[in-house]
């Protein structure tokens, strides 16, 4: 009998050990679906967006207004006003108008990070490209380097910022993919607003998880990366471009 008990104990112990050994890897992988606040952004995840241009309505700017109100942007149209996302209308020769949102493409090989002299421009472990305003000196090299014109410089003093989105004069900034929401397991404001407006042209998800909705859509339909010739591997893809 004692032999059986030992064997049982051995099996339980091995199972527990295997659990401990696997747990960190599994936990990190599963973090795409929500993680505790004390756990850093996981490496196995690559956040991305899929823009379905067949659903994107010309003239609708729900994503832009949602971005402005979520991040406390002025929303002005002057050349010096910060703009994290904008709508672009494309007209073909026959006059057909289509539109698409353009924002930071969260490249896998971001040129803005390459050129930053202070290391303020960086890519987070989960693929989000950000500016650390504590180190940014406002030199604007990254704005020159970005082929998508996605970054803005804050020219004027800012007051009444959103507590979640600190921003101030003298720094470069761009779409953060609503990192403060992602860290709390929520989707970016533009994606939410597009769904609320009834278009559902924006899909947010983990590009490195083959089971995620975004990965399956990308596998099913033809999608394009803007300026794919630059081989920056943007995390934002466009369907129907």
């Amino acid at each position, binding site marked *: 009998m004692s032999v059986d008990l030992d064997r049982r104990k051995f099996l339980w112990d091995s199972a527990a050990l295997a659990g401990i050994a696997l747990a960190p890897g599994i936990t990190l992988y599963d973090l795409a679906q929500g993680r505790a606040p*004390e756990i*850093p952004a996981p490496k196995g995840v690559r956040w991305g967006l899929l823009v379905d241009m067949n659903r994107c309505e010309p003239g609708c700017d729900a994503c832009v207004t949602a971005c402005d109100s979520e991040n406390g942007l002025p929303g002005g149209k002057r050349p010096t006003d910060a703009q994290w996302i904008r709508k672009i209308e494309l007209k073909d020769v026959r006059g057909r108008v289509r539109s698409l949102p353009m924002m930071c493409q969260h490249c896998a090989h971001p040129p803005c990070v390459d050129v930053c002299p202070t290391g303020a421009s960086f890519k*987070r472990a989960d693929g989000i490209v*950000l500016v650390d305003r*504590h180190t940014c000196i406002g030199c604007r090299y990254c704005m020159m380097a970005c082929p998508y014109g996605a970054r803005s410089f804050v020219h004027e003093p800012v007051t009444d*910022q959103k*507590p979640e989105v600190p*921003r*101030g004069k003298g720094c470069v900034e761009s779409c953060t993919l609503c990192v403060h929401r992602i860290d*709390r397991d929520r989707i970016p404001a533009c994606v939410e607003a597009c769904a609320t407006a009834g278009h559902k042209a924006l899909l947010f998800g983990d590009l490195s998880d083959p089971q995620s909705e975004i990965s399956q859509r990308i596998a099913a339909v033809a999608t394009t990366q803007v300026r794919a010739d630059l081989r920056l591997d943007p995390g934002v893809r466009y369907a129907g471009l």
Partner: protein
Amino acid sequence: MGPASAGRRAAQLHRPPEGGPTWAALLTRLLTIAATALSAGAIAADMGAVTRVPLPRIEAGAGERCVEATAYMRRNHMEVLKHHRDETVRDGIRTTQHSLANCITCHAGRKTGRVTGSDGFCSSCHSYAGVALDCFECHADRPAPAMAATKP
């Protein structure tokens, strides 16, 4: 009259009256009294907070106590905040205990709702100490509407 007698007369001139203190000794005593009176006055002023420099007004924060010991926070809050800011910006760690937002939630003035301004918890002490306070060039100086503070 030779040079020797001239010297003797000079010595007589400078000799103090019998039994009295020298001028130097008198002066020293006067100075001591004055200094004592002055320092006593300074101490009295300190006690009564009647100084030319306005002292920081530190309003007690909400809740029973700070997330760390008060003495530790007085000396090290900047290090604590800097450490947490790098973790949050670079790694996405969003614990609230050492976050600036959590500080602001408890320490925002009851009247103004802010930590800046002449009576603000952060600003009043920073202006007293003469230390630049750059946080609020970018960060909001008031709590988020639905932000609940983390208790220690």
